[in-house]
């Protein structure tokens, strides 16, 4: 190893460099621990200096996250993290900005900011920890809780129709849409790295188990006996396969997805995942059936959709440059005097 490389090796950050001296205060067994670990683990790989990374959160259990990241960070107010991150990104386009939010924070009180952030397509990463419950306020239903959910605020069951978060994001013109889950660290890592690489707003929904108020909400997607049948892992350019030893596949029949036996078709006849296809991505977000319903489609995980679209902050920067080219760099004296000046006295 050359001296240079050795020096480089020494300065190379490790996940530990991104941990803070604060005690992590989530409940023992919370899915947030796994997400924190994966995020810390990818940080040394994202090619940004520690001081150029900012984590911004709203309010909720997950929003404690920035305190545990040894970067710049802000634990802000309920629902506003995306809006705060927007102002930061406009002002400092060079920073790597990460928004940490939950299903209550970003889909209920902060819903408006989420959709507008997505359509503007700032280059930032939004990690939406979805546990389908309000944890910090001790167990009320959330906008993603399923119908009929019995919680403290819905003793006879929830009558709210839940959001399908990724479908909402698709509707808001998000340029990167993905889903992963707390119990699959490897997949989480892959998705987080993809999200970071994407230039634009990367929307990552992370299924996260709240073992205190909503334990097992996503068990069907992680349980050894069920997950093969219930989950569909997306890979660009590959057919949509699932089931035991990938014995099942998705095929499009009259523009509708149907489950077929893999053996009955050639690969070309199956639905091949194309993450740049907006129409197919739209359809994939609709794979949202209740896992208890007969004939359900499996729940997709991975990158649904990627689109290269202009970023708000870059366009604004271009306008600033255009204004300077056209009008010259602003001269304060000219601004103060305006164009219609008169003089009183002997000046």
């Amino acid at each position, binding site marked *: 190893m050359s001296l240079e490389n050795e020096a480089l090796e020494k300065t190379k950050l490790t996940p530990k460099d991104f941990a*803070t001296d*604060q005690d992590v205060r989530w409940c023992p067994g919370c899915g947030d621990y796994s997400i924190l670990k994966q995020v810390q683990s990818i940080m040394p790989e994202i090619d940004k*200096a*520690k*001081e*150029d*990374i*900012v984590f911004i959160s709203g*309010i909720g259990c997950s929003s404690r996250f*920035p*305190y545990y*990241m*040894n*970067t*710049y*960070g*802000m*634990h*802000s*107010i309920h629902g*506003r993290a995306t*809006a*705060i*991150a*927007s*102002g*930061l*990104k*406009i*002002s*400092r386009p*060079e*920073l790597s900005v990460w928004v940490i939010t939950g299903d209550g924070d970003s889909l209920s009180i902060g819903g*408006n*900011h989420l959709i*507008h952030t997505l359509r503007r397509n700032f280059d930032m990463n939004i990690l939406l920890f979805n546990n389908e419950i309000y944890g910090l306020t001790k167990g009320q239903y959330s906008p993603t809780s399923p119908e009929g959910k019995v919680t403290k605020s819905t003793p006879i069951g929830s009558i709210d129709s839940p959001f399908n978060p990724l479908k909402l994001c698709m509707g808001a013109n998000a340029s990167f849409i993905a889903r992963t889950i707390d119990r699959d660290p490897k997949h989480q890592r892959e998705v987080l790295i993809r999200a970071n690489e994407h230039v634009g707003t990367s929307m990552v929904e992370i299924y996260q188990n709240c073992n205190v108020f909503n334990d097992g909400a996503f068990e069907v997607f992680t349980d050894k006996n069920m997950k093969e049948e219930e989950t569909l892992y997306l890979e660009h350019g590959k057919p949509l396969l699932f089931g035991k030893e990938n014995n099942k596949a998705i095929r499009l029949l009259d523009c509708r997805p149907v489950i077929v036996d893999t053996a009955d078709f050639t690969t070309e006849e199956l639905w091949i995942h194309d993450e740049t296809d907006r129409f197919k991505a739209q359809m994939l977000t609709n794979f949202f059936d209740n896992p208890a319903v007969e004939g359900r489609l499996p729940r997709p995980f991975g990158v649904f959709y990627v689109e290269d679209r202009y970023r708000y902050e870059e366009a*604004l920067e271009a306008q*600033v440059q*255009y*204004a*300077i080219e*056209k*009008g*010259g*760099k*602003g001269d*304060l*004296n000219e*601004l*103060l*005097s*305006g164009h*219609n*000046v*008169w*003089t*009183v*006295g*002997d*000046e």
Partner: protein
Amino acid sequence: MVKKVVEKQEVTIVFAGDSGDGIQLTGTQFTNTNALFGNDISTFPNYPAEIRAPQGTVAGVSGFQLKFGSVEVSTAGDICDVLVAMNAAAFKVNLSQLKKGGTVIVNIDGFDKRNLKLAGYEENPLEDVALESYRIIKIDVTKMTRAALVDSGMSRKEIDLSRNMFVLGVLYYMYNRKMEGTELFIKQKFKGKQDVIDANIKVLRAGYNYADTSEIFTSRYNVKAARLKTGRYRNIMGNQATAIGLVAAAQKSGLDLFYGSYPITPASDILHELAKHKNFGVRTFQAEDEIAAIASVIGASFGGKLGVTASSGPGIALKGEAIGLGIMLEIPMVICNVQRGGPSTGLPTKTEQADLMQALHGRNGEAPMPVIAAASPSDCFKTAYEACQIAIEHMTPVMFLSDGYIANGSEPWNFPTADELEEIIPPFAKEEDAPYIPYKRDEMLVRDWAIPGQKNLEHRLGGLEKDYLSGDVSYDPDNHQRMVKTRAEKVEKIADRLPLQEISNGEESGDVLVIGWGSTYGVIKTAVQQSVKEGLSVGHMHLRYINPMPKNVKEIIGRFKRVIVPELNNGQLVSIIRDKFLVDAEKLNKIKGIPFTTAEIVAAIKKEEVEA
């Protein structure tokens, strides 16, 4: 015919018409021409909330009042000398403001059967004998305009859009003003539309010539240039002055200006003005709502920029929680409230000063912040500049108060040069000072500002109560009390840098002290000067710094026997004065969406009973 020239010291004119009649533009042009001529001026636009209220109705009347003079002018005038009414509704709404013997210039086409009915007149009021005490000048503006443009090839609808230019031409003749400024304006405004330029200039000149050759005026009026303080002047509106003040502060602090806001009357013009100044590195962001606007400002400030938002009362209410976050984070931010009539949606286009308590207290918890208020359109510049200076140098959100009256009003401004503006020094942390202790404070209790990108200064901030030094989350009871006290003391300490309060006008001590704040400056000044002239012992103290107040306010109050606090609200500053200084201050309140008249304040000084 040679016409008699009558000298006038000051003249008040009200232009009134349908909100689609171009009244605001006409008033602004007349103002600019007189300002450039050298008159002192004060203006007061008064327009309806509806963009196009039903044509011809009283609800749709748009007004523009201005007073110009060869003497000092501090208000747009109590009553007017001249009323220009484009239709019957405009006549109906404004006649009560015309002084006896005053002149009314009416567009008689606006008094046809239909317009009379829409205005709610049974009979044509122009034929009423009661009007004999006024001089009525009837002009068929519509007919004249159409005749002037008969060969223009334009449609009747297009032609009628130039009617306001005819009236403007008439007034330029009446007051012996040159039309070059307006002609230049027309050329710039309609650049690329030669036919429109030609039509407007033709009608403007037609109006001037009509007034010259017809026998409608027996005399012309001459209002000489005012003897203003030596210097260079321009005319400026309040919102424009605010915007320029923000840009100037950004330039002098070396910080780029980030302006996040959501459109709202009467604050939107600040956004429009700033959006034009991107070549100063200004980044404007029209957010999805009021909360996003201030949230984006928090993000920008956290990133080391000068973050500013503006709104009016309803929007400020929505921003309350986020302002509290700014107070906890102790980052610089300026929140402008261009106040309007409230509560709720209230009177969007009318003026009021009823958000003072909101500015001081409108947040959860103990959340003190500096509050400063502009006194006139041009003072908006200085006040906005100072708001930024205090915010940056003291690491705090600052509330800047203006209102609809000064935001849309205009006056001549003896503008400064860039060099004359005080430097603003952001208290940035230095990388070599690591480890960074986020809430370590200097003697003014100001913490250092470390921003993303600075190596080894990484830190986390948040809205949870923080440890006195480290800024880590702390639930310690003593620490909370200490932090609440410290945040309050930090704001109080700003008084150390403020100039001492002065008597703004009138006597330094004596019988009556009139205490004002915000847009009532001009009218209180006029009332106090008038009272002093009449031999009364009256002083005027105008507060620009409301939180904290200058240190000698109590001492000044002590020099007078009586204290009166006129406000366009139900009594807010008066409560603060009573509370802070234990003085039996008297209220004078007007809550009609319009400014005080001089007479109302004079009457209060004299203890006369009048209905405000």
